[in-house]
């Protein structure tokens, strides 16, 4: 274990989040199972319990979302303490069995957490708590992931030790590249860049179009999904070597550290990818009555707007970076 302020904070917050998350599962199950059959008096009691559950879940999810940047900031601060590590890659490989799956969780779970919080916002904007059952049911379904998230963070913090690791360049930069040097007579990197910009622009345009046309929604979600592998490949194969002026280096962690504005790019890309899927959650779970349908629709429009803007700004950041790299 490497004890730093960040590690202590993650341990404390993850512990609190896990305890609180466990503490309200029983009440959430009771509300979810009991609401439909309850009489008026019983419903009033369940509603009172819901407010406490709702507040606790908001706190738990708030903690989990707050931990995401703290987690990466803490790992970055551990780089000098791990022999051989030159960037986050080294830190990840000091405990690969936990940290690589955790990296995946850190991108996936906030989408679900944000989805719950947005549904909660729709519910609180309605006058009759129409989403109470959906929210508690959703929480019960998500709670194992919430506990897993906290447990993995606690285990990572406890088990990460200063073992000797290899540098990113000795692992990422070796072997054949996933993208051929030439694709159809065009340079592979340029080909990939063209695909990246095409998908980015398509995602932005389709997200904006979703504000007006419902039928474009699935197209936008497909673009959002396609954006994930394209983004990963473009970051490793094109953006890192080009922006860092290191033609043979492909470590995205080095890029994020050396060009911090790419962190903003990554965060915006996360919003651009997540928002379309959160709209699916709100559409499926957030339309219980006429009032919630109206508020859900407005919320969905805001999410599409967020997705469109996030994709546009993220793409613009990369355009500026590439322009600066080639000047």
């Amino acid at each position, binding site marked *: 274990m490497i004890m730093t302020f960040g590690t202590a904070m993650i341990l404390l917050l993850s512990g609190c989040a896990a305890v609180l998350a466990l503490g309200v599962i029983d009440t959430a199950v009771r509300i979810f199972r009991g609401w439909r059959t309850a*009489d*008026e*008096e019983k419903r*009033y009691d369940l*509603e*009172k319990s819901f*407010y406490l559950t709702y507040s606790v879940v908001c706190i738990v999810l708030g903690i989990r979302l707050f931990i995401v940047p703290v987690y990466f900031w803490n790992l970055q601060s551990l780089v000098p303490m791990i022999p051989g590590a030159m960037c986050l890659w080294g830190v990840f490989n000091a405990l690969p069995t936990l940290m690589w799956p955790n990296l995946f969780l850190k991108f996936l779970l906030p989408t679900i957490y944000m989805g719950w919080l947005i549904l909660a916002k729709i519910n*609180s904007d*309605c*006058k*009759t*708590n129409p989403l109470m059952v959906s929210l508690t049911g959703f929480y019960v379904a998500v709670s194992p992931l919430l506990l897993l998230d906290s447990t993995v963070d606690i285990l990572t913090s406890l088990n990460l030790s200063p073992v000797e690791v290899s540098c990113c360049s000795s692992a990422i930069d070796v072997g054949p590249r996933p993208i051929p040097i030439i694709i159809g007579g065009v340079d592979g990197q340029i080909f990939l860049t063209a695909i990246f910009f095409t998908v980015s622009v398509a995602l932005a345009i389709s997200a904006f179009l979703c504000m007006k046309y419902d039928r474009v929604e699935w197209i936008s979600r497909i673009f959002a999904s396609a954006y994930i592998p394209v983004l990963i490949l473009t970051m490793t194969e094109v953006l890192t070597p080009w922006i860092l002026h290191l033609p043979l280096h492909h470590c995205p962690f080095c890029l994020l550290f050396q060009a911090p504005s790419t962190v903003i790019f990554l965060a915006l890309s996360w919003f651009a990818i997540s928002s379309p899927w959160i709209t699916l959650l709100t559409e499926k779970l957030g339309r219980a009555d006429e009032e919630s349908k109206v508020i859900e629709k407005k919320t969905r429009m805001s999410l599409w707007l967020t997705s469109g803007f996030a994709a546009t700004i993220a793409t613009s950041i990369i355009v500026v970076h590439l322009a600066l790299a080639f000047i």
Partner: protein
Amino acid sequence: MITRIRLENLSKTYFKGETNEVTAINNVTSEIKESDFAVITGPSGSGKTTLLSLIGLLTKPTKGKIFFDGEEVSRYSDAWQTKIRKEKIGIVFQQYNLLPQFSAWENVSLPLLCHDVPKEERRKIALEYMKKLGLEERKDFKVAYLSGGEQQRIAIARALVVDPKIILADEPTASVDLETAYSILRVLEKLEKEQRTLIISTHDPSIISKATVSIDLRNGTVTKVERFSP
């Protein structure tokens, strides 16, 4: 005149399904107009306080509906009912329910805290209402040192400070002397002239004589509704 409050088949049963089940309000249907001065009369235990609690959205009905300005508020969530209570209703409790550790003006200004009014503004508004009720000189007194009548007027000022459309008062003159009762009555008369809906549970004939509507309760059931010309 616009209907401000409508009660439809309203019932409230405490300890439902248990051996000590009590039906405090039974199938009450009634209408109260915009600037009515309504009194709820009836002997002790007839359900007056329960009916006021139901209208004040402090208690959920077991059955029936409550409408405010045509909106069915009884189906709203507790959070929204709290919001409505905060914005539309002022309540004067029989036992005042003041906070003894706070000064008179701080007690009056408490509801303004929920409206995020800055402290200076809170004080200004509170003093304005205290002046209207003749309490200006008592502004910095801890409420525990005030007389019953003064405490009741503080409670009325607190109910008025957010300018609610509906004022509910539970036997406001029950625990005060005759002179104080008259001063409270004068305050209530003023409120009626301000086009607010006043609903008061009382036994006091002087208040009943000023009412425009009288709802008589017996064992939780409305036995008589009388409407008087103002």
